[in-house]
């Protein structure tokens, strides 16, 4: 095994939308998925229909399919301003028996509301890290916001992202705020990097956030793989999110390459730092959905891993133990 040893998570809990759950009960976790994914503002679009009953039915079927194939927990990594609907997720979790972990956080910069970018001050200075830290931490300690109505449940992680072209100053404030919120609350951080995965990770580490509290998502992007980022991220002790299983496009490596990448990381002793997910969009509004089921990793990708020679223990570690360690509130 690698240099890192897993924390003892025997007594740990994870924040789900229905309350804290023993980390041992999560089962197979899909760490980077979307339940309801709404581009900010799409809810006002004249031709966008948001039928909660229909959305519920679609998501419930997908969650049941996930469960039927051995899934236990879905992490909605869309943050707090991209369609998150805590009450709907509570009902979905109760109905399907799938644990749902929802996220605080937002980003990248272009996805923020003007309140954070051009506030009503002179000059309109964008929000600094400290204010984002407070906004995100309260989502864990006081509850997730249902805008202008109430707080419900506790966020299980902080998710943020950097601009694809490269981290902007406001992206950096988001990252530092996420790191500080994670330090004060004990939940992990899930990031999507901009143009340089390792450099963006370093911003969190610079805030003294332990690397094993971070998952760097999107490391199955071609540019990251070409740069050797997955191994570098694992070497620093952060989790390597290969979370586009089932996506083969201009930006991402193929499933075959993904499986080989996993095998290589395991070979190099980083089996305890790999996380898999499919970035499936359960229901999308204002942007195209992908048609992936949440069960894709279990049904389709795991056989590819087995073909690469991974053992059942390796697979169990990646799908159950690693996300359990990451999501356990410290």
């Amino acid at each position, binding site marked *: 095994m690698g240099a890192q040893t897993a924390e003892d998570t025997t007594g740990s809990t994870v924040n789900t939308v229905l309350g804290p759950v023993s980390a041992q009960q999560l089962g197979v976790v899909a760490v980077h998925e979307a339940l309801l994914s709404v581009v*900010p503002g799409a809810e006002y679009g004249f031709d966008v229909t948001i039928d909660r009953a229909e959305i519920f039915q679609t998501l419930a079927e997908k969650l049941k399919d996930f469960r039927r194939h051995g899934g236990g927990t879905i992490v909605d990594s869309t943050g707090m301003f991209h369609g998150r609907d805590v009450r709907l997720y509570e009902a979905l979790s109760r109905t399907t028996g799938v644990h749902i972990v929802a996220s605080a956080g937002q980003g990248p910069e272009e996805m923020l509301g003007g309140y954070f970018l051009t*506030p009503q001050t002179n000059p309109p200075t964008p929000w600094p890290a400290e204010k984002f830290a407070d906004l995100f931490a309260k989502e864990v300690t006081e509850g997730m916001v249902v805008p202008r109505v109430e*707080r419900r449940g506790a966020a299980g992680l902080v998710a943020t992202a950097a601009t694809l072209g490269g981290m902007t100053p406001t992206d950096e404030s988001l990252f530092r705020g996420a790191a500080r919120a994670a330090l004060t609350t004990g939940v992990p951080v899930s990031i999507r990097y901009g143009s340089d995965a390792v450099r963006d990770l370093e911003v969190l580490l610079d805030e003294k956030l332990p690397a094993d509290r971070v998952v760097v998502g999107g490391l199955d992007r071609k540019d990251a793989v070409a740069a050797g980022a997955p191994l570098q991220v694992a070497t620093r002790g952060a989790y390597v999110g290969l979370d586009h299983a089932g996506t083969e496009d201009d930006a991402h490596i193929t499933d075959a390459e993904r499986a080989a990448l996993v095998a290589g990381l395991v070979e190099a002793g980083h089996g305890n730092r790999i996380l898999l997910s499919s970035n499936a969009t359960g229901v999308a509004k204002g942007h195209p959905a992908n048609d992936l089921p949440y069960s894709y990793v279990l049904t389709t990708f795991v056989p590819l891993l087995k073909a690469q020679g991974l053992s059942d223990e390796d697979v169990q570690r990646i799908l159950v133990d690693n996300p359990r360690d990451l999501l356990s509130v410290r």
Partner: protein
Amino acid sequence: MSRVNTVLGPIPTEELGLVAVHEHIGYGMPGSELDTRWWRSPEQRYEETVPKLRQFHEYGGGTFVDATGICNGRDADYYKSLSAKTGVHIVASTGFVGGDTALPFFARASVEYLAEHFIHEITVGIGNTGSRAGIIKVGVSRGGRMTDLDKRIYRAAARAALTTGVPILTHLAIDAENAITIFNAEGLPLDRVLFGHVDDGVNADKTRDTWIAEQGGRVGFDTFGYETELPDPPFWARPRKERLDHFLRFIGQGHLGKVLASADANCSPLGWPGVEGHTVNYIFEDLIPDLRAAGLDEAAIKTIFVENPADFLTIQH
């Protein structure tokens, strides 16, 4: 038949009465809804808002134009209940206060989509409220120059104004050359546009109010009451006398037929502290008395608050 869209349905222009042409039930920057420091219970919202509207009605106010854009906490169902219970006609906006208040879905949208969206809100309704927008809000982002997104919104607004006959109200009248270039290119007569906030403390010096009027635009002195004399004035405040003198000077230049006036107050602000003591009723309690004291006759006051807004708001066919 002359008509104006209010949140409770179209009304005849003749019923508008005295109009507060640029006001807010409650304004907040998009995203402010995530910050609980600004939250108020619905009980508090009504408690802060209803007495102001009732007072407006009792003073003789007829119509309250809410200039709150799509992502700024605009809430047509709430406005309907306020209008029904207080008797004040409320006109809601489609459009955006500025490009920097349009969320990503709209920021990425084409001019064609934005125009279609505005037209839908004017002719079919806002969301599923059934309330049709009576005005199109556009504006200049922070920074003083129109951004590309601001320009797309202005162009879409011009097309929607031409298609529906509903007028346009701008947030800020700086960089008016760019705005007028767009309106001219789209063929929109400039008397369908109210260039607002020519009087605000930050931008008044940079705003070519006379030039705008000469081009045919309507000119909004619509931040009356944001005064440096207030105990805690906002950064856009201006000395009371300076604003009043500016207004009187402008009218004196022969532009009475072009001016509209309002207070841009929030009944109950959604994402900022608001300005204590400043309400829509500044129009009755301070502004109209000041205008009378300055020698304006009742006919002129009627022109500013009744006739000009009626011309402006009436849907053109």
